[in-house]
């Protein structure tokens, strides 16, 4: 940095270009995806199919919304999939013994909150890195589900009709409205309230947040709690979608939720991003899964594409951060 800079550090052309790539990545991926799948299958863009995609994406959307809050604070959670699986085993068991749907929903929310708080306590209270803590709890949830399952698949209908795709108003599934309300509410809290501002500050510079008097542990715990509640809700929509709980139910959701967040453009290092971007990421991931099936491509390719897209998004994000550091813009 030169001695008399008054206008701020100069940004290298490479950095400017990369930042543009970062901001255009999601729109470009979305457009490319829609064009390719529309060409491969005439059903892809039909209203029926799109509503179907939205309904099927509800659980990922709910998890990814909560996960965004955690990622914005520089954390991560890889246990959400098996948390959904574990909770839905309880829900299916309750439903098949005739428990009222409303009560089952409450159990789902409480269960989700408890699992979220467990992750939150391990990371915020005991300062265990969130990747390690949630890998541990993920294994725990998976094993618990396996033990409870005990070679007996549990079948169940939707917990409540509005948490399945069937209940609609003017053709729009109510479940979709639930998801949109969750996103709108989280967005408003994140950009418009003090606690939302704290989330960004923590992800940007924990030390600064602490010195500004922000109770970092409390906000982190709150983030894990919100994610937990949404995981509980996602367990309901998941059960409505698949109708049965098996030994490894839900496991695939962890990665898809993470993929939605990072493809959306929320920085995996925290401090930068939004739930609205994540919603875009969810749309991309959901369309990808659906388009591959409609195009008749073996579903093996799905994992490959999701993996590549995650690496691409994280790679661009990492390169931007690296270049910012190099060009003297303090991190």
């Amino acid at each position: 940095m030169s001695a008399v800079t008054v206008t701020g550090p100069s940004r290298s052309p490479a950095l400017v270009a990369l930042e543009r790539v970062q901001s255009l990545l999601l729109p470009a991926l979305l457009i490319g995806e829609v064009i390719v799948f529309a060409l491969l299958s005439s059903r892809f863009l039909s209203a029926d199919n799109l509503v179907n995609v939205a309904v099927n994406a509800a659980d990922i959307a709910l998890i990814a919304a909560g996960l965004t809050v955690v990622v914005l604070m520089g954390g991560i959670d890889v246990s959400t999939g098996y948390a959904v699986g574990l909770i839905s085993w309880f829900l299916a068991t309750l439903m098949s013994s005739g428990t009222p749907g409303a009560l089952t929903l409450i159990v789902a929310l409480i269960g989700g909150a408890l699992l979220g708080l467990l992750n939150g306590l391990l990371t915020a209270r005991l300062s265990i890195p969130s990747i390690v803590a949630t890998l541990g709890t993920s294994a725990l949830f998976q094993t618990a589900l396996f033990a409870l399952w005990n070679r007996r698949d549990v079948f169940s209908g939707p917990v409540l009709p509005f948490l399945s795709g069937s209940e609609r108003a003017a053709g729009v599934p109510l479940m979709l409205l639930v998801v949109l309300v969750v996103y709108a509410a989280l967005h408003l809290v994140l950009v418009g309230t003090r606690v939302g501002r704290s989330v960004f500050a923590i992800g940007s510079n924990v030390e600064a947040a602490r010195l500004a008097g922000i109770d970092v542990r409390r906000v982190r715990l709150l983030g894990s709690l919100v994610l937990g509640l949404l995981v509980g809700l996602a367990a309901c929509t998941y059960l409505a979608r698949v109708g049965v709980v098996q030994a490894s139910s839900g496991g695939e959701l962890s990665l898809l939720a993470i993929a939605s967040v990072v493809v959306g453009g929320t920085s995996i290092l925290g401090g930068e991003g939004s739930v609205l971007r994540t919603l875009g990421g969810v749309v991309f991931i959901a369309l990808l899964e659906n388009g591959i099936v409609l195009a008749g491509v073996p579903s093996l390719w799905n994992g490959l594409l999701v993996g590549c897209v995650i690496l691409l998004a994280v790679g661009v994000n990492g390169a931007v951060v690296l270049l910012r550091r190099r060009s003297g813009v303090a991190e």
Partner: protein
Amino acid sequence: MSAPTDRPEDGTPTPELTPTLELRGVDKSFGAIQVLHGVNLKVYPGQVTALVGDNGAGKSTLIKSIAGIHSIDAGEILFEGRPVSVSGPRDAAALGIEIVYQDLALADNLDVVQNMFLGRERKNGFVLDEVSMEEAARDTLSKLSVRTLKSVRQLVSSLSGGQRQTVAIAKAVLWESKLVVLDEPTAALGVAQTRQVLDLVRRLADTGHAVVFISHNMVDVFEIADRVAALYLGRMAADIPISEVNRSQVIELITAGRSGTIGIAPAEAAAVEV
């Protein structure tokens, strides 16, 4: 903001003047290592007190103790004559203590306004009152004659070192604090930016703030300080008007804890220098 006080040119406070901050016999250890030994310090309103000392002398530890980030093991902290216990950044802020840390506690992904109000945002019910915060931030910056910022909505990551320091200092002014502590605010700056920051620090004192200014640069110290407090291996070697010492004496105080008749007693100094 405390009323502007007359500042006698020689840096001697008028007898009735109560120090904004007074430390009495402050001890602080990290585990087995004692970093501060019975530190006494008086900081007066309207004056810049330069806190000097070698690397590791305990300057940063001292101000973190004032801020309540470190709890002190022994001694007393008086604020405006009253004993206080500060147990965290919030307490310090409530008293009117603002600290600009050495490693600049700013959040890069937030803009200037958001940083200035971090942790103390203005609200309208539940919702942040962005308009009034932006206005107040702009007011404060113009009151300090800061004209180098293009926009108060710029992300802090896009600011230069001097601009970042300016934002950190403006934050202190915004909160109408009585005591402003600056830990090496010019250490990473070039000539022009150092000039800006020094002017800003002087203006802080001239508007009645009590200012503690930590620096290794004797030119800066002699330019803006009214008093100088020298820490030597965790002991306060001297806390005196700067008019009573010259540059080489201050350097002696920093490196040996003693200069002529000023400083820690020879026996003690010898005992410290194992």
